[in-house]
């Protein structure tokens, strides 16, 4: 169950370089790689290439839904102009969700690593267990919980806070979408942070506590840097799926003002006649955007461990 927890935790320092191959066995690594890499080439790289080709198709003006092979960059221009707000929302919502997930996840991971004692294992299981009630089911549950006549709205109403929400409600607003995204990807933030904290030596933190009397200074200069690989892995594992998600916006958002790129791709694919090349162009733009951000981020915080 702790698999995800290894993510981004990296390894022992002794991972510099594997030893040189004994002569005559240089084929061994390729043999080990072959099935897995082949699978990824056939079912990941090749489909991406195909999708890219599709993203440049043109459609016959008189026969909607029929395309011919082409190199039509206009699809990208359309994808990025017509649906710019959706890109903006995807990044914004995913960014907010990542931030809130971090805020919630850190104390939980910290408590699991240092305070939970024998409860550690149980807490770990509790973090993962909700996965098994389908996430669709849980998101629909959120829809009811956040509904206008639901408990959260009722509490906010009585605290006179509801009017601060967009349109005076929670459901079908961006607040609900961000809340859903935060909720759904929270375990992906908790586990890597927990793993890196668990690997950290509590004695180092105690030593930090001796050096700096101030608790916050200890946290900022000792605890946080030690958990940095986990924080990076966690933010990536939260941000990436959140940015491509459409289920939360579909189930918790409104019909107009809160749609994300994922919703557009989905509807261009399945619901809009002739939307196929645009959907492909949107997919590619989203992927390029996310990959660019990920590589910048990883380079900025210098963790090769994830790769």
């Amino acid at each position, binding site marked *: 169950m702790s*698999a*995800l927890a*290894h993510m981004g935790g990296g*390894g*022992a320092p002794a*991972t510099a370089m*594997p030893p040189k*191959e004994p002569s005559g066995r*240089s084929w061994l*690594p390729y043999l*080990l*790689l072959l*099935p897995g*890499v082949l*699978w*990824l080439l056939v*079912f*990941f790289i*090749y*489909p*991406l290439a*195909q*999708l890219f080709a*599709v993203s440049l198709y043109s459609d016959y003006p008189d026969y909607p839904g029929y395309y011919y092979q082409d190199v039509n960059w206009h699809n990208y221009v359309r994808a990025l102009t017509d649906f710019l707000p959706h890109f903006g929302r995807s990044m914004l919502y995913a960014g907010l969700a990542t931030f809130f997930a971090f805020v919630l996840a*850190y*104390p*939980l991971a*910290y*408590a699991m690593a240092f*305070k*939970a004692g024998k409860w550690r294992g149980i*807490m770990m*299981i*509790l973090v993962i267990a*909700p*996965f*098994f*009630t*389908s*996430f*669709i*089911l*849980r998101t629909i*549950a959120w829809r009811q919980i956040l509904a206008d006549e639901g408990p959260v709205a009722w509490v906010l109403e009585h605290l006179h806070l509801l009017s601060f929400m967009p349109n005076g409600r929670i459901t079908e607003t961006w607040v609900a979408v961000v809340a859903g995204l935060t*909720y759904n990807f929270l*375990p992906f933030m908790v586990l890597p942070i927990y793993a890196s904290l668990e690997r950290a030596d509590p004695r180092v933190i105690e030593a930090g506590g001796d050096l700096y*009397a101030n*608790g916050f200074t*200890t*946290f900022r200069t000792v605890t946080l840097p030690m958990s940095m690989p986990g924080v990076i892995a966690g933010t*990536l*594992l939260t941000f990436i*799926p959140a*940015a*491509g998600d459409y289920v939360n916006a579909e189930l918790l958002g409104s019909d107009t003002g809160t749609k994300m790129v994922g919703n557009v791709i*989905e509807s261009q694919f399945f619901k809009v006649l002739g939307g196929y090349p645009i959907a*492909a162009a949107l*997919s*590619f733009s989203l992927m390029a955007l996310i*990959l660019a951000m990920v590589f910048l981020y990883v380079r900025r915080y210098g963790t090769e461990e994830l790769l």
Partner: protein
Amino acid sequence: MSTQTVGTAYRPSLGKRVQGWLAGRFAMIVAVLVLLYLFLPVFYTFIFSFNDYRKSNIEWRGFTLKHWANPCGAAGACDSLVTSLEIGLLSTLVATMLGTLVAFALVRHRFRGRGASNILVFVPMATPEIVLGASLLTIFVNGFTQLNGWFGTDLKLGFWTITIAHIMFCISFVVVSVKARLQSLDPRLEEAAQDLYAGPAETFWKITFPLVLPGIVGAALLAFSLSFDDFIITSFVSGNETTFPKFVYVSYLRGIPAQANVIGFSMFVIALALVIIGQIVGNARKK
């Protein structure tokens, strides 16, 4: 963020130990609240599995056990669950084997193309599911159209395309977790085994494999939970096949039957029970 800030900020006059005590409680309290937050919709699902509703299971209409008495009562609910379990097990098995081999190659061997292989494994994790789904749909549809045209076959989207897709996105997660385990393995242990007359094969099976096994098991559990809970990719490549998440999503428009709540909550309890039993057995064996 720091749990200790609170102690410092509100009770500066108290001694360090009291501060530490407070800080400890604070972290645990927040942790329990966050856990409750994680469980809120699960509780909700649980409670509404007892709802005696008429048309849609949204408003509370009274208590009944009839959905629990007849969990397969809703058309397709149990079939979709079985499909999900089958796909989950199959893709876990294949992805764990392929991913483990790749992890061993990447950690234990130096060869040309190691960097490229690392990137190839990483990029699927950085690709949004919707892009994976869309691209797989493209090759499946195009490929099947061609093959069916050539050979007169009747290939279509369904069980096997879902399984293929799930294996694909699980491999990367398996590689990453097995890799982490392998990297934290002390190379001295294998040296010690060799020093104690174990040849390469014995060293692998007596030392390396048992020590990496927890990582492999963890990776398999992760792969299963990812596959079992996947909706986005599945929705692209499933054709007429229905997995449990897809069943829930599709019936959402008509009103979800409470049987979905029963099944969802049961899976949660079963998973919880299995893992707890596994931990107890593991602890017992350790002693």
